[in-house]
Each structure stands twice: as C-alpha cells, then as structure tokens.
C-alpha cells in the first residue's frame, strides 16, 4: 500500500513530498528530491502517540533529526497495531530511570542524614578548637540567661571552688570548666560549649545539702567531658542543612532563635546516661556521697516540681527541660545510683559555713 507522506531532513525547513510504503520490516520512501530510503521499523520512534486528526510523526535511529510525517489514519493504524513500540506514551525505560533516581536520592538522604545526626557530631565536637568553643559557648549562655545577673560573693565563689576541688580529687582528667550561678527563679542547670556550666538560683534554693549540688555538677561535668553541647551544636547545624536542602530554602536562619537554642541543649537519653555514668564514677573516685544526686533527682521528679513555661520571667532555659528531663527512663537512671560501698566514709563536700555561703551567693 503506497501512500503520500512528508519528509523533513532536519537541515532545512523545506517539506519534501514522498511516497511511502511498508514492506513489513522497513518503511521505504522516496520523492522528487529524496533518494529512496529504508527505515527499519525496529529503529523507528514515535514523536507523539498517534491521535486522530493529528499527523503521526516518526524519526529513526539512523537520522534522529529527520522527521517522517504521515497523515493517512488507516496506514498509521495498521502500522501501530502491528508494532507496539510506536504507540508512544509512558515508557518503562523512563519509569525505571525515575525509579532509580528516586531510590538513589532517598538512599543518599538516609545515609547523609544518619551521618550528620549520629556519627559526625561526636567526632567533630572533639576537633573544635578551644577559642571557638569558648566564643560560641559564651554566645549561647548569653542568649539563654538573657538579662539575669551572674551571682558572686567572695565566700560563695570560694565555696564553688572548694566543691570543684573535692570532685576533682582522685580524678585527674576532669575537663576545665567554669561554674557560674545566675539569678533566675527556675530550677535548672546546663552545660554549654567550652565547659561553661550554668546553675540557676532556683536549683540552689531547691537543694537541701551540698551533695545534691555536687551530684548535679558532676553530671554537668560529664556532659562537658563528653563534649555533648558541642556535638549537639554540630548536629543542629547538620539538621539545618538537611532541612534547607530538602525544603529547598537556601540560607536559613541558623539557630538564631530561642526555640532552636532550647532544642540545642536537650540531649538524647544516651547522652544523659553517659553524663550520669560520668557523675557516678567521679563521685565514687572523689568519695562523695552519690545519694545527694539521687534525692535531688527524686525531688525534681515530684509532681508540681516542673518549671512553668508561662512564668513571666521564663526564658529559653525553661524550654530545655530540666537536668533530669521527664522523658521515659528517668526512673531507671535513678535506680542506677547506688550508695558508696559499705565501709567507705564519704567526704564532706562543703563545710556548713561554705554551704551557707553558697546558698546565699545570689543574695
């Protein structure tokens, strides 16, 4: 069956009339200025799916720029019904391609996400230089305590130093720390990058004996020793990157808001356990009664002991959750604290005078 068709050579816009025949495995066409051409049917590609009222356009592997345009619906129907690959539309090749890219993208996101969240932060935290830790730690402390006053008295400062000295007894590799009280009513303590440990007036008021403060301090020193604040900062940065990348927003406001800072110092359960273990170990070596930490834990867990986030003076600190955050597992953590072995007499962390001085450090 010979029909009329039009050929474009892909080099000129001129339309060239041809007569076209289908010999079963080839399309054969020729015209006044088109030499006889054989296009194998296997090598043909449809430009669009065949559609009534629209010309059917074909190209061929041999000449991808050329087009053969057929307007004879009967011819097109017969050609396409015998050769399914000319139907066009969705191709498995494309769908497989998309599926592969999707799978690859998701896998890359998971691997990168795992690396940024779980593996990298702790490693990077130990590579950060000292002056960076101090500068960034200072910034974080400043935005967390807002305008609260730092508490100092001569005797109170001496008592703080005495407490650190007792804890460092028998524990030579205690990291360098700074230990400050701030005049804030809420009950909390936290460690910021650079070994900056912050206690509130509220926590001081809640404590009935120096061992309780010493226990919490040992726990915070644990965070410092494990570089948890730094690791958390790296983790938040990584998370920020992941979020900007996934959401498609560039830049992003990096941890510049209070909510982000609060999340920054909310540690994982593993981190809290590490800090607890460090605290128990330190108190054991320094011969400090660990039951102070235990009673303080229990006090804070009592219903109604929570900080009230709607407090007028509340700051970002409220949102951190307190030292013994209420997430599940806290009771197990308390159970792990055991008294010193029988026969060992705990040292006095502070003399009664020193304790009095510390209690009144914020006036």
């Amino acid at each position, binding site marked *: 069956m010979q029909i009329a068709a039009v050929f474009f050579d892909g080099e000129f816009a001129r339309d060239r009339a041809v007569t076209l025949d289908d010999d079963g495995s080839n399309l054969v066409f020729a015209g006044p200025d088109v030499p006889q051409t054989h296009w194998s049917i296997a090598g043909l590609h449809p430009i669009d799916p065949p559609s009534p009222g629209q010309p059917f356009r074909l190209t061929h592997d041999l000449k991808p720029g050329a087009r053969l345009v057929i307007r004879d619906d009967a011819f097109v129907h017969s050609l396409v019904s015998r050769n399914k690959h000319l139907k066009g539309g969705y191709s498995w090749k494309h769908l497989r391609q998309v599926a592969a890219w999707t799978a690859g993208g998701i896998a890359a996101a998971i691997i990168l996400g795992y690396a940024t969240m779980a593996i990298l932060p702790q490693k990077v935290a130990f590579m950060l230089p000292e002056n960076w830790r101090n500068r*960034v730690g200072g910034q974080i402390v400043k935005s967390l305590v807002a305008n609260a006053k730092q508490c100092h008295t001569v005797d109170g400062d001496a008592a703080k130093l005495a407490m650190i000295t007792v804890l460092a007894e028998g524990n030579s590799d205690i990291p360098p720390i700074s230990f400050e009280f701030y005049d804030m009513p809420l009950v909390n303590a936290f460690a910021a990058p650079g070994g900056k440990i912050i206690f509130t007036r509220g926590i001081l008021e809640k404590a009935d004996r120096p061992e309780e403060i010493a226990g919490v301090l040992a726990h915070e020193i644990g965070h410092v020793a494990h570089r948890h604040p730094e690791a958390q900062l790296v983790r938040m940065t990584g998370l920020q990157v992941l979020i900007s*990348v996934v959401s498609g927003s560039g830049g992003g406001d*990096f941890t*510049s808001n209070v909510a982000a800072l609060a999340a920054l110092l909310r540690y994982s359960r593993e981190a809290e356990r590490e800090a607890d273990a460090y605290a128990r170990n330190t108190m054991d070596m320094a011969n400090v009664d660990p039951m102070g930490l235990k009673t303080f834990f229990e006090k804070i867990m009592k219903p109604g002991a929570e900080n009230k986030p709607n407090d007028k003076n509340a700051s970002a600190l409220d949102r951190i959750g307190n030292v013994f955050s209420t997430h599940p597992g806290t009771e197990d953590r308390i159970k792990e604290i055991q008294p010193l072995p029988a026969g060992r007499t705990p040292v006095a962390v502070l003399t009664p005078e020193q304790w009095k001085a510390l209690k009144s450090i914020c006036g």
Partner: protein
Amino acid sequence: MTDMPPPHSPPERLNFSYVPRQGLLKLTIVNFLLSVITVGIYRFWAKTNVRKHIWSCVHINGEPIEYTGTGKELFMGALVVFLFLVLPIVLAGAGIGLVYGPQSPLIITYQILFLLLIYVLWGYAVYKARKYQLTRTHWRGIRGNLVGSAMTYSLLYFGSLMAKSMSLGWATPVMNTVLQEQITNDMRFGDAAFKFKGRAGPLYPTYALCWFLTLMALIAVIAAIASAAAGSTAVRDFFGETANPNDIGIYAGYIAIAFAIFLLVSLLVIPMLWSIYVAKELRTFANYSRFDGAPFSLDASAASVIWLVVVNILILIFTLGIGWPYINQRTVKFVVDRLSLDGLIDVDRIAQSQASVDKRGEGLADAFDVGGL
C-alpha cells in the same frame, strides 16, 4: 525520473492554530500520582510530558511544533544546580554559623549576600530556561535558539529590578521593553532571526491607569479594615463594660469581613487590574516584533487576559495545584489563537543553525521557581 530542480514552494503566510488532542487528563492524573510516589522527583518528567503534549497541539500551517526535551535533561540541570550552587551556599551558611557562632552578625551579612546573588542570577535563570525551551522546540525539523549572552541579560535584568523598585514601579514599561528587546533580538528559528524595535511610551497611559487603580484598591482595603476596627470599637462602646458574648461574635465578624476583603483584593482584584496592562504590553510587544521581516500581531483584549488569569487562578485553587497542565494549555492556546504573522515567509529557505545548544535544562529556573511553562 528527471533531473528537474526540486519544487520550491513560494513564500507563504504562517497561520497559528491550537488543535487539542486527547490525553491531557490522563497525563495530569498519572503525573500527579508518580510525583507523589517519587517524592517529587518525577516532576521533571511530568513537566516534559505536558510540554510534549501541548507543543504537539500547536500547528503552524498544519504542521505541529515538537518538544524534544527530556525529563532527564531537566533533572540533570536541577541536580547540577543543587550540587554546585544550592549545597555550597547552604553549607557555607551553616559553616559560618558554626565557626562564628549562631548569634554572629556575619550570618545576617551572609543572608543579604545570598539574597543579592539570587537577584543577580534571576535573569540568568530566565534566559537559560528560555534558551533551553527554544532549542527543544522544533518545527519542520528546525529548532529555535537564543544566541546571545545570558550574563548580559542577567545584568540587565538585575538593573531593571533595581530601577523598578526605586521608581515605585514607574520604570516597569521602559525596563520591560528593554528586556524584551534584548531577548527577542537574540531569538532565532534555524538561521532566521526575530527582531524587536519600539518605544515604551505607548505603554504609559495604561500603566498609569493600573497603577492608580491599584493604589485606590489598596486605600479601599485599608479603609474597609479601619472601618471594621472602628465598627467593633463602636459596638464595644455601645454595650459598655457589660460584656455580652454577642459582642465578641460581632467583633469576630468584622475581622472576618476585613480579612475576606483583603484576600479578595490581593488574590483576585489586583491580578485582574494588572491584566489590563499585561494585555496592552502583549499587544504592543507583538507589534514591535518581527520574524524574518514580517510583523507579528496579537489580538489580546484586556477582558480576554482577565478571563484567562481569573480562570487560571480558580483552576489552581480548586485543583489544589494539580491542574497546572490545564493552566499551561490555556495559556499557550490563548497566545496561539490570537497570534498572527502579517507577511510572507520563505520557509523552505530556512536552515538549521549550528549555534550552541545546552546539554542540560533549566536548573536555575527550577531552583528559583521562575514562572513560565
């Protein structure tokens, strides 16, 4: 067969028509489902499928145009932009935050620089996207192209953004004319060129009309909101201190009305107002443009553009965005139905051009979500 020279058809008038074909609904649904399954990665293929469909409905003298781009090209374009632009920017931002601390003023400086970079690159993205689409548009086997510099256009575009914002919009007709001239004069179909020549002056009366109407609409909104607030105060004064639950209802009612007016004006009234200017600009720019010496004309009345825009907005809202292929179709059909080229073109003479063709597509335009098809 004789060795007679091949028949050469005489120069002809070019007629544009939109001949719909079946399958857009199926495309729309399948595209949406696959995009969901592939967490959005399919959209490059979806865009491509829709373009192929719409392009094939545009007939010039009975011969449909053809879209030869592929989803993979678009995807690769986006991937390259992501890896070599977006990712370094995000990482550098995070690095600055990490090194100098989260409260460092450097972060704000960086964000300003980042915004500036986007504005500088915006025109580049527009130009490259147009170039990609033209090089993937074939008619009678011949492709289009943009043969100028994307950098030049991008600087011009940045300058125009500055001029527009500093003149409260009044530089818009001049700057749009300059930009249109720049890009049209770079446009080719094979070895045949497009030309643009004309002044912005005739656009100004319509621009002024739209500018003042917008101002009045904004004043009306502010007045409505103010009177709603005043009304609620009056209600409170009337009932005095004796708190009545009805007061609150009336107060909330006023706020709801004020908010509804604001939405209506910003989403519908202002786009409708500016459609008057858009129509004028479309007609004017068509008249200023020539292909191979023949002038274009576009019969786009203000009412027709308003109808196009309003229905497009409604489709977008009521299909929750899934109906975007229909918006593209309507827009293309709008132009094709109203466009004519008033002159004879010697089509047979037009040859393929060897001007450079980009391997990948539209990465930046995709990242910025530049408008267009």
